[in-house]
């Protein structure tokens, strides 16, 4: 089988879009806790937390640049424990992203197409992404190249559209209630960075796998900058309370401003950006999921697995929660925080322990890698 490679630049764009899509659309720094006007501080704390997590994930990945998580888990922890840890990571791919798709479906249903069945919206997105995943990581990389400018343009255009409606006073007082509220509000978005575990599968597909940590740090920095900006602009435009009340604050912000009498209703931009970003996210995760499963079960080619995998993806995303109330509860820091962090820390705790242990056992082997 020909080995497919993507450039580090493409990984950067993919990680940026994964990190920017849902986090910006639902803005958990504002909606998941009581940070209110300090949401942008929560976004900065989120950045710090994400940097730590990316070091945990990509830091181990670059030590095994030719191997995916499944392969090095096998090597570090032994056959069966390795497979178990890999399955845990693969589960988090499936679960987190099916929730993402569901949120997107909810948005389409509650904002635009109220009578369209949810399963239709979700399965279109999943099937499309499955097709991209089937075509392979190179195709996803090129799609990221293609969509990234559009994505950024749409987000920037949406932010610029609101300039006339900013009320900077909404951002004051800064940190009046101390660091507690923004800290609480950053728990969920930090936990969402469990999604970044895709790096563990993607790193061997890079042209310069050893640079992966640097690449993903750049991506995270850019994405966090976007998040800080969006959080501040949403609060300045909508007010902290109205923003925190809304299901999709970003969309609500755009809907609530008219640029001029002739240029109104620009939320189509944001919806398009969200769709593109989600498409890149889902196809990346389907690719990584299928590839991971194939390696766990020793299947030569991941491709035959992609289409069957779409089925649990759709089903889980429809059944992940019943209604908006459950979604809101799910994203609360006290529920999603421990869950998301456990998804990262349990497998990576074991893997790093295995890595350290191996280092002690075979110090000479380490140099070769």
């Amino acid at each position, binding site marked *: 089988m020909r080995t497919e490679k993507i450039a580090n630049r493409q990984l950067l764009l993919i990680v940026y879009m994964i990190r920017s899509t849902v986090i910006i659309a639902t803005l958990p720094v504002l909606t998941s806790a009581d940070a209110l006007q300090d949401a942008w501080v929560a976004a900065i704390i989120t950045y710090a937390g994400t940097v730590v997590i990316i070091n945990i994930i990509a830091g181990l990945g670059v030590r095994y640049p030719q191997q995916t998580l499944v392969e090095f888990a096998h090597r570090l922890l032994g056959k069966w424990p390795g497979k178990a840890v890999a399955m845990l990571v693969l589960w988090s791919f499936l679960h987190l992203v099916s929730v993402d798709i569901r949120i997107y479906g909810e948005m389409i249903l509650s904002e635009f197409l109220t009578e369209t069945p949810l399963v239709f919206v979700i399965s279109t997105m999943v099937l499309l992404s499955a097709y991209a995943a089937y075509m392979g990581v190179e195709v996803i990389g090129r799609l990221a190249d293609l969509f990234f400018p559009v994505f950024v343009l749409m987000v920037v255009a949406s932010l610029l559209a609101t300039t006339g409606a900013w009320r900077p006073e909404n951002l004051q007082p800064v940190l*009046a*209630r101390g660091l507690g509220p923004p800290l609480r509000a950053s728990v969920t978005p930090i936990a969402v960075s469990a999604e970044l575990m895709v790096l563990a599968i993607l790193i061997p597909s890079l042209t310069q796998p050893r640079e992966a940590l640097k690449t993903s740090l750049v991506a995270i920095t850019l994405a966090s900058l976007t998040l800080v900006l969006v959080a501040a602009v949403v609060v300045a435009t909508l007010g902290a*309370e109205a923003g925190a*009340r809304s299901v999709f604050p970003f969309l609500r912000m755009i809907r609530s401003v008219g640029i001029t009498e002739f240029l109104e209703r620009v939320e189509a931009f944001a919806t398009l950006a969200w769709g593109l970003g989600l498409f890149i996210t889902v196809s990346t995760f389907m690719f990584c999921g299928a590839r991971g499963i194939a390696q766990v079960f020793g299947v030569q080619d991941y491709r035959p697995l992609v289409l069957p995998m779409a089925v649990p993806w759709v089903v889980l995303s429809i059944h992940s929660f019943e209604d908006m109330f459950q979604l809101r509860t799910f994203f609360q820091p006290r529920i999603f925080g421990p869950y998301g962090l456990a998804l990262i820390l349990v497998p990576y705790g074991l893997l790093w322990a295995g890595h350290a242990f191996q280092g002690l056992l075979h110090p000479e082997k380490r140099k070769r890698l």
Partner: protein
Amino acid sequence: MKWQRLVVIGLLVSVLLGGCWNRREPELLALITAVGFDYDAEADRYIIHLAVVNPLATQAGETGGGAPTTEMFWSISGSGFTPFGALRNLEGSTTRELYWAHARVVIIGEGLARRGIEDMLEFIERERQFRLTAFLAVVDGPIARLVSQAYPLEEEPGEALDRQILLTSLNLATIPPVTLRQASVVLSRPGLDLMLPRLEARPSHSGLDAPNPARASGSAVFSGNRMVGWFTEDETRGREVITGQLRRATLELEMEKPATGRIAVELVSAKTTVAARVSGDCVTIDIDIRADGRIQSHAGGMDLEFQGLHSEALERQVGDEVRRLVEKAVNRAKVLEADVFGFGELIYRTQPRTWERIKDEWPERLRELEVNTNVRVTITRTGLVVEPVRAR
């Protein structure tokens, strides 16, 4: 293999042939342009008044040419247990689906405003079709007059009221323009109370001398989500100066010595800085206003020379007039216990700890507020002539 793939793709693509999931043809919708909410205390029901664009009139205009044969809009009203219920109850008596997204103004009856506008705003925020760019106003008089009478220069009430609110606030500053988005921001901020334009609903008739059904004048003042009283035009202007929202306002004065005559000065820009000082229970607000003026009309006085002393005297006099407006607004707000200037918010923003201490007794603090106003007006331009007409 190849033809199998083609068949599969063909089948998948054919799913899209049906087009959208359902259709909602623009021709079959009735576009709401103005919405009025009121509350009937006796029946304990929400009342809704709508002005809907008449599709027949627009079609007639497009195809036939010449004057439309039907009325440009249609006005209906209904009631319900909730605001949304009131809207849905209307659909039994219409022939086209009512569509919200083009509503340009939301007008509120005094009865509902005094009862509280939370229910109404909640419904509007929840409703996905609604745009938060629409203007809000409180109606003094029967709402029906504003949505069921023709506006001499406009096709329908939504557009008419939208333009009237913008025009009046830009040129006179006697009403505060507030969109739904801004209203929800104001309501959510501590120490800041809502102020909405007041629209006087007047009876109209047909004919060439038909009056405009609405007169935009003054404002409705809220405390929390309940309306507590009206501001006059002067008081509203004073508030617009304090909050720095004044774009243009004309002041008419009888000139004092050494000059004489009546003069109209237009304030073209006002920059205001407000600072709050809290010591113990005593709150002092310092307002510093810098404004530019322009002479628009000077009648009756023949001896005005705009040099040195005279111009300074005029500037001082205009400054006093601005201070008078500001004081009027502050005094009225103290009576109503409504902080429409955001003095409380200023303390909350800049001294959050102090605000925590005084927020519960803010209405009392507001009543005893000490306000120092410092106004400086510069008359820079005199229009196209310097001196008035002289008949010899």
